């Protein structure tokens, strides 16, 4: 196995793993705080139980997120020294601001988690606020680095006159950043909301239809619904940004092999890069032109504008994009189904609704991960789009495969242990209520 492939696989699964936890770091604190807030204002006691159970689960997820995030800080250097040599002084500002936000989060997680008996009830609730802010801010800030890799504002200066390169403007003045940050943050809300809804719906299907489960499902669905409805809007903004900044990536997402006016929107399908065709896709005439540029007859740049060696992996990018959009659409439908059922007397939390909700969690994470795959695989073969090739960034150290295997085993162990422990946290929830 060659070095580049091994490094990409390792970066891929460690980052993909971290994202599962990071997503909770963004979305979960808000839910914990909501539950505790309801209890604080005199709401039923089971909201306090929820807050305590969730706080515990959140702490576990946060800790694994923290260590897997540390791994990324190391791996950026260890696997991609060429990238860090070129852009370290630029992207450092993004990581530094993220680290401050994360630091704030870590400090207050400590206070929140261990402070149940040491702070007043209001003080404890207030200690949760910096966790919410820190989680959201750290995600949004670190995305500035990714946004810069997609649309490297000022890279020409960095190449020709590095002394004049101004990192803050390059990172935070990048028009691609707010769009990506918004889309990514809301995706994390969706993932958290739908996953918790999934867990509680599953519990109710297994006969545990207590107040804790009902309340947990409801709070989770409020967040999930809000996020699911916003996703298509931010997704549309992201798509337009990609069209403007990364036409080759857009072409790969849509398998647009030829440059054409009135390009169709292809739904589903399997692209064949050799034959430059897409099979089994449903085509909506002029759809892509309209979505990307606001006019059904606009010209869309195809993959034919760049050399084949500059293409990303078209099938992976295309299929991931289709999966993301598909999952996102289903998430909206699931949310609507839930509220519609709740509004209609005599329906409520029926078995078929609960079974559908169980599917929501995996779907939300599928959307999150495939969206990320579209972003990063679609950027290839560049690590910094149009400026530095991934192959030029990889470490010259040999035998990366052994390390890869080691990390794979470790992450497998971590993943299974976390799942096992989370199951216990969820099961022990009623016992907690007695203690509280």
């Amino acid at each position, binding site marked *: 196995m060659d070095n580049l492939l091994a490094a990409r696989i390792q970066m891929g699964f460690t980052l993909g793993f971290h994202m599962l936890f990071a997503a909770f770091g963004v979305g979960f604190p808000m839910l914990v705080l909501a539950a505790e807030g309801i209890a604080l204002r005199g709401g039923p006691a089971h909201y306090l139980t929820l807050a305590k159970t969730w706080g515990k689960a959140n*702490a576990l997820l946060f800790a694994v997120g923290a260590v897997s*995030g540390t791994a990324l800080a190391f791996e950026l250097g260890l696997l991609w020294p060429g990238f860090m040599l070129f852009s370290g002084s630029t992207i*450092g500002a993004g990581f530094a601001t993220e680290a401050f936000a994360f630091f704030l989060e870590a400090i207050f997680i400590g206070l929140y988690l261990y*402070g149940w008996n040491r702070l007043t009830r209001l003080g404890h609730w207030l200690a949760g606020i910096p966790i919410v802010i820190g989680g959201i801010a750290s995600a949004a800030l670190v995305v500035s680095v990714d946004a810069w890799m997609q649309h490297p504002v000022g890279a020409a200066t960095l190449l020709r006159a590095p002394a004049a390169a101004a990192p803050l403007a390059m990172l935070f003045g990048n028009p691609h950043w707010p769009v990506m940050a918004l889309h990514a943050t809301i995706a994390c809300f969706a993932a958290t909301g739908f996953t918790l809804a999934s867990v509680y719906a599953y519990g109710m299907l297994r006969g545990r239809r207590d107040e804790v489960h009902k309340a947990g499902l409801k709070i989770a669905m409020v967040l999930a619904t809000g996020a699911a409805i916003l996703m298509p809007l931010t997704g549309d903004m992201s798509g337009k940004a990609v069209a403007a900044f990364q036409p080759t990536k857009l072409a790969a997402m849509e398998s647009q092999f030829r440059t054409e006016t009135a390009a169709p929107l292809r739904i589903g399908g399997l692209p064949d890069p050799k034959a430059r065709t897409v099979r089994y896709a449903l085509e909506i005439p002029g759809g892509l032109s309209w979505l990307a540029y606001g006019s059904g007859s606009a010209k869309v740049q195809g993959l034919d504008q760049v050399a084949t060696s500059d293409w990303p992996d078209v099938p992976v990018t295309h299929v991931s994009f289709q999966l993301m959009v598909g999952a996102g659409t289903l998430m909206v439908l699931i949310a609507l189904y839930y509220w519609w059922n709740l509004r209609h007397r005599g329906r409520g939390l029926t078995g078929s609704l609960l079974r559908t909700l169980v599917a929501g969690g995996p779907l939300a994470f599928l959307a999150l991960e495939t969206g990320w795959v579209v972003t990063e695989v679609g950027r290839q073969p560049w690590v910094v789009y149009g400026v530095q090739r991934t192959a030029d960034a990889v470490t010259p150290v040999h035998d990366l495969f052994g390390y890869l295997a080691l990390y794979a085993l470790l992450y497998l162990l971590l993943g299974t242990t976390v799942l096992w422990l989370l199951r216990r946290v969820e099961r022990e929830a009623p016992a907690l209520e007695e203690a509280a």
Partner: protein
Amino acid sequence: MTPWVPWPDVAWLVAIAAMTAYMLLGGADFGGGIWDLFAWGQDAASQRRAIARAMGPVWEANHVWLIFLLILLFTGFPLAFHRLVIGLYLPLNLVLLGIILRGAAFVFRAHGRRGVGQQSTWGRIFGAASSLTVVLLGAALAAVSAGGDFMVAWRSYLSPFAILTGLFALAAAAYLAATYLTFEAQGSLRETFRKRALLAAEAAGIAALLDLGLMSFEAPRLFIRLVNPDILGLVLLVALLGVGSYVSLRHRHDGLGRFLAASALSVMLWSWAAAQWPYIIYPGFTVYGSAAPDLALRQVLTLVPFGLLLLVPSLWLLLHVFKGRLPIDGEAGRRPNPAR
């Protein structure tokens, strides 16, 4: 015209400050892992619980200093960072694996059914990974100071000097943790940790002296700089502070002992930095030779005071709430359950 500021120096000073914070806070957490692994005696379970209780609220925050250090290095000194991550590929990967394992194991154990006191698989992993990581970090610091051939990297971090420096780091982390725990623990547990602290202090002292001896052969430049009159004062101060903390602990001045121990190790790190100056990696990578352009440094370093404005009060609050004396270990607090 903005006033001229030597930005590479500022960046390096901030990096040393982050290193100091990580050593004093993160280092003590590693030390906690060491004492967890080697907890012995009738009160072994109480020792483990006290360690877990002391670390629980703070270890994640303490850990962020290392991330800051990494960010400062690749932002401020991309050339030196580039050399480090290639030359020290193996030990840095092992450090990373150690950090992941120790953090995860600590949390997994806290959530486990068996509790913290009894030795368990996750507990052993937590302790072993903590110990190995400290040794490797010490060895890596020796490797960048010795001037060995970085391309044949294993020679630089597997040299006797590097290994002994790693062992010194182990003893120092254990010493730091035990002095903190002596201050925080109550009753007989305090005496247990006092014994541990004195033992670790003796080990660290012996290792430091042997390490100086080996340094004169294997890292001659560092040694010559350390005994140079302008730095020798700092080295002597380290010895004075170290002995002072040992004596204070013996005479049950635990607060003073803790302060002097932390001071001794901080001054030791600073004397290393002074002796290592102007190099980040000796030879070949100096602070000025590998620094990022001034504009980039200025912009990133300008963020630091704003960040500290947020962090310092928050950290103060965290330590204020949790870092008094630990409650006496008894039935009431049998299991430091994170959700209680």
